[in-house]
C-alpha cells in the first residue's frame, strides 16, 4: 500500500464539524436471520458512535415502525440510519417510518444485498464491513438537510398543432375529459390527409370503406365540441416554455370570407376567373382562387387563396351574403397552455427524385396518392379510372413499391414507410373490383402486411392481383405505352413489362410543418427528421421537451389506426400531468441569480433542455431538470447549486467509509447509478461473491460524482474508485468522456490514474458486474505506484 492514509482525515470545506452535536439513531434489522446469521450484530452495536443503536427482527414491519418512531420522539433524534436491506427495496418504506422527521434525513446502509449475502462465508469480514457501511451512512445523514419534494401542476389547457386525424383524435379525447384544446391548423380546413384518401382498408371486414364517411363524424364532433377552439390558416411562430407552461405565438391569416355569414352557395367561385391547381386533388384538377377545399371541409365556408387572387372583386359582387372582404390583416394570437401535442403529420416523397421512373415526364406515371384521388368519387374523374393521357381505362397498371423508402441513396429514406404495401393492395383491390379486365401488377421487394393485414393480402391475391418480386430499374416510353424494366427475381430473369399506367408508391416523410415546429419548439428529431420520442420503447409519445408530446405521422410513418391510437396515448399523457401533477425529487439545480451573468453555457450543455432565459433571468424548469449536475461544471460564476447538499453528502459517505481504515485494509469505493445499484443488489440476491474491499455508494447520476470527490477519496485512503453507469442514460457519453480528464487530474495529483475504473452496467448482467469487481480488485492489489 503506497498511498498512506492521511492521519488527520477531515471532511473538505468543513472547517469545523457543525453537525457534530446532531443526534443520530441507528436501527439495525436482523432480517429474520438474513443479516444476523452472518453479521455479529452485538459487535456492530458496540463499535458505533451514535446517540441510539437499536436492533430488531423485522424493521420493515409495523412493529419496526413503532420502534423507530418511539425512539425518534423519546430520544429527540435529528437523523436516522437504517441498517437493513437495499434502499431499492425499502427506501420509501423507511422514509415514511421516520415521520415526523423529514424523509431526506434518513439513509440506509445495505447490510443484506451488499454484505451478509455476499460475504456469508466470512462472518468476521462481513461484520467489519457492516460497521463501515453504517459509519458511511451516519456521516452521510449528518450532511443531510430537510428538503421537500416539489409538486408541479400544469394548467388544464392544451395546444394541438395539426388538424389531421391525429390532432383531431387527441383533441377529442382531451376535450371529452374536460380540458380546453386549441387546435391549430395551417391550411384552410381541418381534416388533413385522411380527407383525400378516398377509401380506407379494413383488415377485419376484408373490404374497403369510405374514408370520408369515417372521418366526417370525427370532424363534426371536433367542430361541435365546446372545449375545442379551432384555428385554421394558422401557424405557430414562437414558443417559450416554463415549467409546464407554454407561451405560444400563433399567426392566423385572414380567410377573407366571413365563416359566420358564408352559406357555401359557391356563387363566388363561379364568378372567379383565376384557375389554380387543386392540391386536394394532388393537382389533377383545378379550383378557383376563392374555393372550399372539399365539401365537408370545416369551417364550412369558402376561403380566398390570396397568393393567387387578382383582386378583381367579382366574388365580392357575386356573394349574396355580403361575406367577402378583400382586405384583411394577419392576426397574432398568444396562447398559454400547459401542454402541447405535435400532430403535424407527413408529406409524400417527391417521385422526381427518382427520375428513372419517369414521373413528370410521362403523363401515365402517377403516384398512389393521385390514384387515390382518381378512384375517389369526389375526385377529378368522379371515381372513374382513366389514363391521364387520353381518358381511357388502362389495360394494365404496374405499381412500383418502395419509391424513396428502404433506400439509402441520396434523397432516399432508409426506413420502410410501413403503409405502402397496404395502400397498393387496397388500390389494386378497388381497381380489380370495378375493372376486372385491368391487369394489376405490383413490383415489390417484400410484402409487409403484419398481423390481420395478411388476410387482406391473401384476399387481394384471390382477386387476381399479380405480384412480381423485383425492384424496377426504370420506366421508359414505348410508343403510346410504357415499359417497366425489372428483374423478376423469383424467375431470375430480366424482363420488360409493357403497360399503359405506372403507379409509384412513394415514401412518407416528415412534413415541412413537422420540421418547422420541431425547430420552433426545440424538440429533438430523429436522423430522418421525424419528431423523436424520448425513449422509443418505454416512453412513447413523450418528447425530450417536458410537456410536449407527439402523435401520428409526425413521429414516424404509420396508418390511420395507429395514428389514432397514438393520439389517444398522447392525450392520456397530457391528462396524467394535468390531473395529478408531478411530484419531483427536490435534488435539482437552482440558480443564484446574483451570481449568474446569463452566459448561457448551461443552456447549451443541458441534455434535458431544462434551462432557459426568461425576463433576463436564468430559469431552471423543475420538471425537466434531472439534477445531473452537468451545468455546474460549465458555470464560470459558480452560480448553480444542486439542492439538498449532494456534494457534502458524497464527501460525508466517503469520509465515513475511510475514517477507520487500517493499514493493511483495501477499500475500493464504487459509485453506481440506480441501474448499477440494482445490478449489484442482484449479485447478493443470487448469493454470488465480490471482494470485501468493494464499498458501494448509490448516486442519483454518476455525473454528480465530481473529480474532487474522486481525488478526495484517493488522497484519503481509498485504494481505487470504480464508476458504473447504464449506457442508456442520457449522460453516459459525457461521463465516459469525463473519465479521461479525471484520470489526468489524478496524475497531476501524483497518483496512479489506473486506480480509477469505469464500466457500463446493465441490470441482468450482474454476474458480469461481479466479475468486474473481482478483476478491478485484483488489478488494484497488483498496482505499485
Amino acid at each position, binding site marked *: 500500500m503506497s498511498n498512506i492514509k492521511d492521519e488527520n482525515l477531515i471532511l473538505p470545506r468543513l472547517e469545523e464539524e457543525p453537525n457534530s452535536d446532531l443526534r443520530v439513531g441507528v436501527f439495525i434489522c436482523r432480517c429474520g436471520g438474513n443479516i444476523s446469521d452472518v453479521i455479529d450484530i452485538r459487535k456492530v452495536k458496540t463499535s458505533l458512535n451514535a446517540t441510539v443503536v437499536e436492533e430488531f427482527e423485522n424493521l420493515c414491519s409495523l412493529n419496526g415502525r413503532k420502534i423507530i418512531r418511539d425512539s425518534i420522539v423519546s430520544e429527540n433524534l435529528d437523523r436516522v440510519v437504517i441498517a437493513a436491506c437495499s434502499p431499492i427495496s425499502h427506501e420509501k418504506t423507511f422514509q415514511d417510518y421516520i415521520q415526523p422527521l423529514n424523509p431526506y434525513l434518513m439513509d440506509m446502509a445495505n447490510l443484506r444485498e451488499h454484505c451478509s449475502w455476499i460475504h456469508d462465508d466470512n462472518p468476521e469480514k462481513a461484520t467489519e464491513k457492516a460497521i463501515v457501511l453504517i459509519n458511511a451512512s451516519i456521516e452521510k445523514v449528518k450532511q443531510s438537510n430537510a428538503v421537500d419534494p416539489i409538486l408541479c401542476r400544469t394548467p388544464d389547457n392544451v395546444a394541438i398543432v395539426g388538424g389531421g386525424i391525429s390532432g383531431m383524435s387527441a383533441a377529442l379525447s382531451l376535450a371529452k375529459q374536460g380540458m380546453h384544446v386549441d387546435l391549430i391548423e395551417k391550411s384552410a380546413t381541418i381534416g388533413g390527409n385522411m380527407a383525400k384518401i378516398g377509401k380506407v382498408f379494413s383488415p377485419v371486414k376484408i373490404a374497403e370503406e369510405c374514408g370520408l364517411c369515417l372521418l366526417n363524424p370525427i370532424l363534426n364532433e371536433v367542430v361541435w365540441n365546446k372545449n375545442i377552439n379551432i384555428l385554421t390558416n394558422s401557424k405557430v411562430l414562437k414558443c417559450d416554455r416554463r415549467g409546464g407552461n407554454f407561451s405560444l405565438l400563433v399567426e392566423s391569416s385572414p380567410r377573407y370570407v366571413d365563416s359566420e355569414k358564408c352559406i357555401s352557395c359557391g356563387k363566388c367561385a363561379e364568378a372567379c376567373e383565376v384557375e389554380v391547381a387543386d392540391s386536394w386533388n394532388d393537382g389533377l384538377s383545378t379550383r378557383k382562387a376563392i374555393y372550399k377545399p372539399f365539401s365537408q371541409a370545416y369551417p364550412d365556408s369558402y376561403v380566398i387563396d390570396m397568393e393567387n387572387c387578382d383582386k378583381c372583386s367579382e366574388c365580392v359582387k357575386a356573394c349574396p351574403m355580403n361575406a367577402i372582404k378583400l382586405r384583411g390583416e394577419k392576426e397574432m394570437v398568444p396562447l398559454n397552455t400547459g401542454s402541447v401535442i405535435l400532430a403535424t403529420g407527413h408529406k409524400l416523397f417527391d417521385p422526381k427524385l427518382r427520375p*428513372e421512373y419517369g414521373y413528370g415526364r410521362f403523363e401515365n406515371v402517377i403516384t398512389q396518392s393521385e390514384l387515390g384521388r382518381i378512384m375517389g368519387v369526389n375526385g377529378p374523374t368522379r371515381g372513374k379510372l382513366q389514363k391521364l393521357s387520353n381518358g381511357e381505362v388502362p389495360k394494365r397498371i404496374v405499381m412500383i413499391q*418502395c419509391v424513396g423508402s*428502404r*433506400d*439509402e*441513396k441520396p434523397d*432516399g429514406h432508409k426506413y420502410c414507410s410501413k403503409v405502402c404495401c397496404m395502400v397498393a393492395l387496397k388500390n389494386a383491390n378497388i381497381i380489380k373490383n370495378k375493372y376486372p379486365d385491368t391487369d394489376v401488377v405490383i413490383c415489390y*421487394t*417484400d410484402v409487409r402486411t403484419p398481423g390481420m393485414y395478411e388476410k387482406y393480402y391473401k384476399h387481394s391475391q384471390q382477386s387476381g392481383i399479380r405480384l412480381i*418480386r*423485383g*425492384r*424496377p*430499374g*426504370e420506366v421508359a416510353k414505348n410508343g403510346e405505352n410504357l415499359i417497366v*424494366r*425489372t*428483374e*423478376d*427475381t423469383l424467375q*431470375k430473369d*430480366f424482363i420488360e413489362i409493357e403497360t399503359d399506367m405506372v403507379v409509384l408508391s412513394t415514401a412518407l416523410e416528415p412534413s415541412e410543418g413537422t420540421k418547422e415546429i420541431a425547430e420552433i419548439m426545440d424538440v429533438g428529431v430523429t436522423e430522418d427528421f421525424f419528431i423523436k420520442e424520448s425513449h422509443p420503447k418505454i416512453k412513447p409519445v413523450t418528447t425530450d421537451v417536458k410537456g410536449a408530446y407527439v402523435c401520428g405521422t409526425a413521429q414516424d410513418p404509420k396508418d390511420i389506426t395507429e395514428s389514432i391510437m397514438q393520439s389517444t396515448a398522447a392525450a392520456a399523457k397530457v391528462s396524467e400531468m394535468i390531473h395529478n401533477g408531478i411530484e419531483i425529487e427536490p435534488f435539482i439545480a437552482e440558480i443564484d441569480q446574483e451570481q449568474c451573468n446569463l452566459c448561457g453555457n448551461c443552456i447549451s450543455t443541458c441534455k434535458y433542455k431544462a434551462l432557459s432565459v426568461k425576463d433576463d433571468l436564468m430559469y431552471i424548469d423543475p420538471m425537466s431538470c434531472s439534477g445531473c449536475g452537468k451545468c455546474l461544471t460549465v458555470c464560470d460564476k459558480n452560480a448553480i447549486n444542486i439542492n439538498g447538499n449532494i456534494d457534502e453528502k458524497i464527501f460525508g459517505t466517503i469520509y465515513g467509509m475511510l475514517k477507520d481504515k487500517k493499514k493493511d485494509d483495501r477499500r475500493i469505493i464504487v459509485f453506481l447509478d440506480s441501474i448499477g445499484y440494482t445490478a449489484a443488489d442482484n449479485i447478493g440476491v443470487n448469493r454470488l461473491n465480490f471482494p470485501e474491499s468493494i464499498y458501494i455508494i448509490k448516486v442519483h447520476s454518476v455525473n454528480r460524482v465530481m473529480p474532487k470527490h474522486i481525488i478526495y477519496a484517493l488522497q484519503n485512503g481509498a485504494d481505487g474508485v470504480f464508476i458504473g453507469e447504464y449506457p442508456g442514460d442520457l449522460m453516459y457519453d459525457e461521463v465516459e468522456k469525463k473519465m479521461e480528464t479525471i484520470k489526468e487530474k489524478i496524475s497531476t495529483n501524483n497518483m496512479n490514474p489506473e486506480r480509477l475504473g469505469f464500466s457500463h452496467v446493465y441490470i441482468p448482467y450482474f454476474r458480469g458486474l461481479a466479475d468486474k469487481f473481482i478483476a478491478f480488485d485484483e488489478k488494484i492489489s497488483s498496482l505499485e505506484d
Partner: protein
Amino acid sequence: MDLKLNEDPLNLANTILKDIKSSENLGLLRCVQCGMCTSSCPGAMHSNFNPRDMIEKILEGDETVIEEEDIWNCFYCYTCHSICPVGNSACEVNQILRQFAISKGTANKKIQPFLEFGDIFLSMALGGIPSIFFPEMREDIGEDWWEFKMNLDNVRNKLDLGSYIPPQESIDEVNKLLINSGFEERIEAIRNNKKP
C-alpha cells in the same frame, strides 16, 4: 445448396468485405435481393449476367461463382453501385471476384489479351488501347482512323501539345515501383498461364 452445421456461408462475403477494393461500409451483407441491380444492368439486359444472382451466391458461400463465365459480362458501369438501395455495389464486388479468379489462376485466358496494358506501362509509363486490338479496330473503324494514328505526333503538334510520353526518369520510377509491387511478376505469371 445444403448447409452443414459447421459451415459458415458468410466466409466468402467477409473476405470480399476485407478486400483492398471494398468501399467503406459496403452493404454486401445488407442485400435483400430486391433485384434493382439487375433491373438496371446493361449486362443483364443483353446477356445471362445477373448481378443479384451473383450476390445471392456470394451470400450463400457458393464459391463456384468465382469461376462463372457470366461475371465477365459486367461493364463496370457502376449503375448498380449508384442506385443500390442498401449501399451494396455488385460492380465493385464483381471486380473483387475477378481478382479472386486471377489469384486462383483460373482467369489467365481472360486477362491475357489485355496484358499489353501492363507491358506499355512498364516500358513507357503509358496507358491507351493495346496495339493487339489495332488490326480489328482498323477494319471496324476505317482507314481514316488508322491514318490519324500514324500521324498522331503531327496532329498533336498542330494542336500545340507536347509529347505525351513521360520523361525517361519518370518511366524508370514507375518501372521500379511496379516491379517492387509485384505487378510485373503478376503479369508474367498470367502470360505463362501460372497462378500469380
